[in-house]
C-alpha cells in the first residue's frame, strides 16, 4: 500500500463465508485517505448496506465499473 496504485481485492475467488470478513479486514487496515478497489461478479449493494450500518460516515463508495459481468468499486476510508 506504499505506492500510489490502489490495491485491488478480487473477491470472486474468495469463499462465501470469507468474503465480507476479508473485505472488512482490508478496509479496517487502510489508513485515513487510502482506498482499495473491490472486484466482484455482481453488484455488491448488500455490502454497501452493511458498511452503512457498521461504518457510517467512515467510508466512500464509488462505482468504477457496473457490470454486466464485473463490478469494480473504489472503497475509501475517510
Amino acid at each position, binding site marked *: 500500500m506504499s505506492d500510489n496504485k490502489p*490495491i485491488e481485492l478480487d473477491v470472486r475467488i*474468495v469463499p462465501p463465508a470469507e468474503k465480507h470478513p476479508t473485505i472488512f479486514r482490508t478496509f479496517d487496515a487502510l489508513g485515513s485517505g487510502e482506498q482499495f478497489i473491490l472486484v466482484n461478479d455482481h453488484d455488491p449493494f448488500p455490502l454497501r448496506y452493511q458498511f452503512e450500518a457498521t461504518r457510517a460516515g467512515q467510508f466512500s463508495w464509488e462505482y468504477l465499473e457496473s457490470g454486466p459481468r*464485473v463490478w469494480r468499486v473504489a472503497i475509501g476510508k475517510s
Partner: protein
Amino acid sequence: MRLAISRRAAPQLPIPELCELARSRGLDGVELLAADLDAAAAADAAAGFIAGIEVDSGAAASAEATVRRAAAFGAPVVVRHAALGGADPGALARLYEREGAELLLLHGSTLDEAAAVVTALTGTASPALGAAWEVRPGTDDLSLAPALLLATTGMLRLIRLHGGGPELGDDQAAGTGGLVAAIAVSGFPGVIVQTPSAATRAGEWQQWLRGSARAGCGTAHEKQLAKRRTELDIRTVEPKDRMPTILGAYQALSPGQTLRVTFDHDPSCMYYTLQATEAEGSFRFERGLDGPTVWSADVTRVR
C-alpha cells in the same frame, strides 16, 4: 490484477468456445497447455486472450517452436523451475529475449522453492524471465503467503490458484480469503489463474463456465419457484444470484409468514439489506445456526 482460468477446467472444449465462455464469465484470459499450441484454430480465436502456456519440461520450454508460438500469442510460457533440471537460465533468457517472448519459472508454496527461483532470476537479470507461484489452499501453508509475496516482489507475474470457480464452497477453499487479501496488499500486478484442484472435477468447472452449475439455480424459473417457498437453502445458489433470490422470496411472503434461509456465510448482509430496503418494523429477523460452516436466519414478514 487480472483473473483467468486454466485450460484444465475444460480440456475437451474447442479453444474458441472455451475463450468465449471465459469471456462470458467476466474472466480476462485462459492459460493453455503446451498441447494446445498445435491446434491451428487456437491462434486466431485466442489471440490476446491467453494468460499463459503451461509446459511440463525444460525441453518443452526451450523448444524454439514453443517460444515462437508464445511470442505470437503474447503470452508467457510457464514451467516448473524444478523441471528445468540443469538447463542454463542464462541461455533460456537469451532465447526468449531474441524471440520477444516471456518465460516464468514456477515455484510452490515453500520459501526454499521461491528462493531458488529468485536466485535464478537475479542471476540472469533478464526482463524476459519472471516468477510464477502455484498455490493449493487446501494443502499449502498459507501463513507463508506474505513472506513468499515479499520475496518475489517485482518478479511474480502469474499465480496459479488451485480452486476457485465451482470449488469455492469446498472445505479445501478455507483460508483463501486471507490469501487473496495478502495478494491484494502486496500490489501484485499480474494474473491469477484459477484451476481445478483435480482433473476429475473438470465436469463441474465446465458446467460452471456455462453458468448452469448446480441445476439451474438463479434462472428465472428457479427464482419463480423460490417465491413459493418458506425455506430457502441459498448455498445452492451462485453468490451473484443470492440476494435477488432472497428478496424475491421475502417479498412473496404474506404477513405473518416466515422464511427460513440457510447460508454458508454470516447472514448479516441480508439483515442490513432488509433494514435498508424495507419499511421500519415490517419484518422480524432471528438468527439460528451461527457457523462456522452453516448459518441460518428466520425472517418473518410482520405486515
